[in-house]
């Protein structure tokens, strides 16, 4: 029984870490209606910077603001390419993502492993002072929970500010933004900056949790992000009091739970992605069924 509990804790931790990435994709895909492929590059970027900083002996807490900044820079690059150089949204993301592949390798040298003797946010002295009595897997859960919830709240608060409202307006009705005499390009750039800062932060935490950076770890992260956003928002479509950020956080956890279930059931590894696809389809169908079952309100 305890092993099952541990498994749930570990899976929950993964879901919460990757929820940061889901927030990022939620902002670009769901709010801005911008298919941003930068994610496949900014996620490993966060990990690369973290791995290098940790091996060079910097404080693991310092990696968080640094990674937020470099992730923001990646988003800024995509934003500027799209808005100022008038490159289509999809292509702008592809350009930054491709450049980042090289930049990440340049930063890290090659795939990096962080020695167990090096402290991470899960093992550094201040963490131990607060949570030293708890086992590492619970520490990991507590810390990732705090981070995931903190950034969720920050985002929720931001969405109620003027800038946050404009962000939402650009995706829904960009003409309105223009009539308000606001530059929708700037708003898009802000959205991309915030989104990629969060995605890079996810890479940072994954790197600290896994103690490694690999150049290919970004592959498929956009797809993961989109899946979790769609799972989350579809499940909670009818519950307007559930915030989008909460929905995608749960989407991320569900995704990781489904993978872990497949592993635990001993399903052939080659089928793991297929199981995910089935889950994905199932949720979408349930979502559609709900829509037609209830009186059309939207």
């Amino acid at each position, binding site marked *: 029984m*305890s092993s099952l509990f541990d*498994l749930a804790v570990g899976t929950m931790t993964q879901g919460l870490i990757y929820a940061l990435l889901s927030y990022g994709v939620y902002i670009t895909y769901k709010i801005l209606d911008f298919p941003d492929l930068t994610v496949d590059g900014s996620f490993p970027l966060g990990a690369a910077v973290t791995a290098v900083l940790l091996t060079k002996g910097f404080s693991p807490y310092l990696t968080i603001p640094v990674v937020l900044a470099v992730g923001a820079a990646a988003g800024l690059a995509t934003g500027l390419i799209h808005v100022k150089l008038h490159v289509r949204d999809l292509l702008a993301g592809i350009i930054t993502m491709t450049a980042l592949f090289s930049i990440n390798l340049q930063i890290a040298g090659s795939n990096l492993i962080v020695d167990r003797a090096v402290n991470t946010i899960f093992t550094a002295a201040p963490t131990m002072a607060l949570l030293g009595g708890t086992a590492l897997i619970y520490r990991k859960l507590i810390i990732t929970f705090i981070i995931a919830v903190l950034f969720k709240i920050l985002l929720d608060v931001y969405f109620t500010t003027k800038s946050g409202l404009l962000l939402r307006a650009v995706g829904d009705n960009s003409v309105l933004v223009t009539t308000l005499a606001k530059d929708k390009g700037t708003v898009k750039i802000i959205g991309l900056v915030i989104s990629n800062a969060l995605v890079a932060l996810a890479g940072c935490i994954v790197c600290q*949790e896994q*103690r*490694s950076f690999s150049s290919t770890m970004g592959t498929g992260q956009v797809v993961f992000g989109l899946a979790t956003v769609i799972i989350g928002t579809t499940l909670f479509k009818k519950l307007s009091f559930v915030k989008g950020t909460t929905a995608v956080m749960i989407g991320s956890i569900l995704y990781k739970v489904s993978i872990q279930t497949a592993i635990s059931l001993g399903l052939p*590894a080659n089928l793991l992605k297929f199981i995910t696809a089935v889950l994905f389809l199932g949720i979408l169908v349930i979502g559609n069924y709900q829509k037609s079952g209830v009186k059309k309100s939207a």
Partner: protein
Amino acid sequence: MKKLIAVLLSMAFLFSVTTGCSKKIPVIGISQYGEHASLDNCREGFLQGLKDAGLTEGKDFTVNYQNAGFDDAIATQIAQNFSSNNVALMCGIATPSATACYAAAEDKDIPVIFTAITDPVKAKLDSGNVTGTSDKLPVDAQLDLIRQLQPDASTIGIIYTTSEPNSVSAIADYEAKASEYGFTIEAIGVTQQSDVTQAADTLIAKGVDCFSNLTDNNVVGVLSSVLEKTSEAGIPVYGSEVEQVKLGCVAAAGIDYYLLGQQTGAMAAKVLKGEAKASEIPYETISEYGIYINSAALSEMGITLSAAIADKAIESDKA
């Protein structure tokens, strides 16, 4: 309400999970990075190694085998699964899986046995409750073999992936030792699999006398298409292990991953029997390497074997 359903749904997922903790037979969790002939050989050898040590599957241990399909995030979840189920021992095949197992065992004393890792020091798997075997290439033997088969050759072309630490260290090894055998190395680094065939074209255009192949995952994945190009250009390709020779490399002074796995299995048996702790066993490099040849490929390239080599060589032509 829906939130409740979602929570219940996720609980149901978790409770449907099978646990392994009630059984008394120790479980060995094998996490393999992906399906790939060399890695599969490693795993089969590993199980044989356990058997050779007198342990019977189903009686002395059971195996929980998982592979990550070359996805790091899944390798993480597999390792977590093993750790949560408190397996008796984890076996990580290839670097990403081994490091994931080691990370998941960070606060538990579960021994981790790795294999198919070129540089355990660089992978930080050289201290702690972890041990295993390294598949470091016998570069001297390979250079010697090429010299004997192609006495007039002067340049060796090598394609490698810049992000694979295994390959980077092998290239450094080649470059340091090439001049002893009168070779120069023409190495091209790529970042992804789709660049490999272009790199092959470049090397062919540069007029290298032969290719030597590493255990680079990216390159091995498209080795067949590289071989197609080189055989058209009449350039022999040397492999680094038996599976590559089966694919059509002319020869290799290389390791047999089955033997490597067997050696690893013997180490795991010691740990399982309680004869030694993983932390007390230093990692091992394969002691035996073989000369593998593919006669069809050799004759296509017009290379004849000296009697000395022919005696030692193991025919590895697929046909």
